[in-house]
């Protein structure tokens, strides 16, 4: 039997934890997920509106044209890109791909850099 007399932390005190790169990427995975949960009603509202009729379609399109909307779309697409790429990385880890520390750090960096680039490309694709 493994001795577990040491008092173990049950809840995470984020202020006391050191964050290596994979942890930063993992934290961003959570933040991006929560961000997309909170914006889900807006997304559904937009989908609903765009399918409600020609007027609604034009209205939904117009709602995405302001500077603020473009920034929001970019941030949202970052969240989606980061969550997608970090998620693929986790799925790879599940089948023992990239589990070595050096590789894990490299792929974490890659996800952190690729997500904003992908988001920029997608945002550009939408508005260009």
């Amino acid at each position: 039997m493994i001795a577990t007399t040491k008092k173990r932390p049950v809840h995470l005190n984020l202020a006391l934890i050191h964050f290596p790169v994979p942890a930063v990427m993992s934290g961003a995975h959570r933040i991006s997920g929560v961000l997309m949960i909170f914006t889900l009603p807006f997304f559904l509202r937009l989908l609903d509106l765009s399918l409600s009729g020609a007027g609604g379609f034009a209205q939904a399109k117009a709602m995405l044209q302001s500077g603020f909307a473009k920034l929001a779309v970019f941030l949202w697409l970052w969240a989606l890109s980061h969550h997608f790429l970090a998620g693929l990385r986790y799925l790879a880890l599940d089948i023992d791909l990239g589990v070595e520390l050096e590789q894990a750090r490299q792929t974490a960096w890659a996800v952190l850099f690729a997500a904003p680039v992908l988001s920029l490309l997608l945002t550009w694709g939408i508005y260009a």
Partner: protein
Amino acid sequence: MIRGITGLRAWIVQRISAAYMALFVVFATGYLVFTPPGSFSEWKQMVANPVMAMAMALFFFSLLMHCWVGIRDVFIDYVPIIPLRLVLLTLFGLGFIACGFWVVQILVLARLGA
């Protein structure tokens, strides 16, 4: 008795839903990039297509299951006050169910109007 989505079950749900959503997002992005709907009727036709509507229904079902497992993990990690955690889980759970009915409504209306 309803057995909740916890432990290994939650782990599996999170991965299967992730795999389906990843495929759908790549497919949908490609579809929208190569055949962007220029008008309302094109957009509506795209969504009202029976295969597309079903693929979207499965996508949103996966999404809501994925959201539930994810937010549950977050609250378990960061909300140590159990009654507060239960209130939050209830609110978000109900919110996700409401979103599910909303999606059904959107898709059914799109199909009926096709």
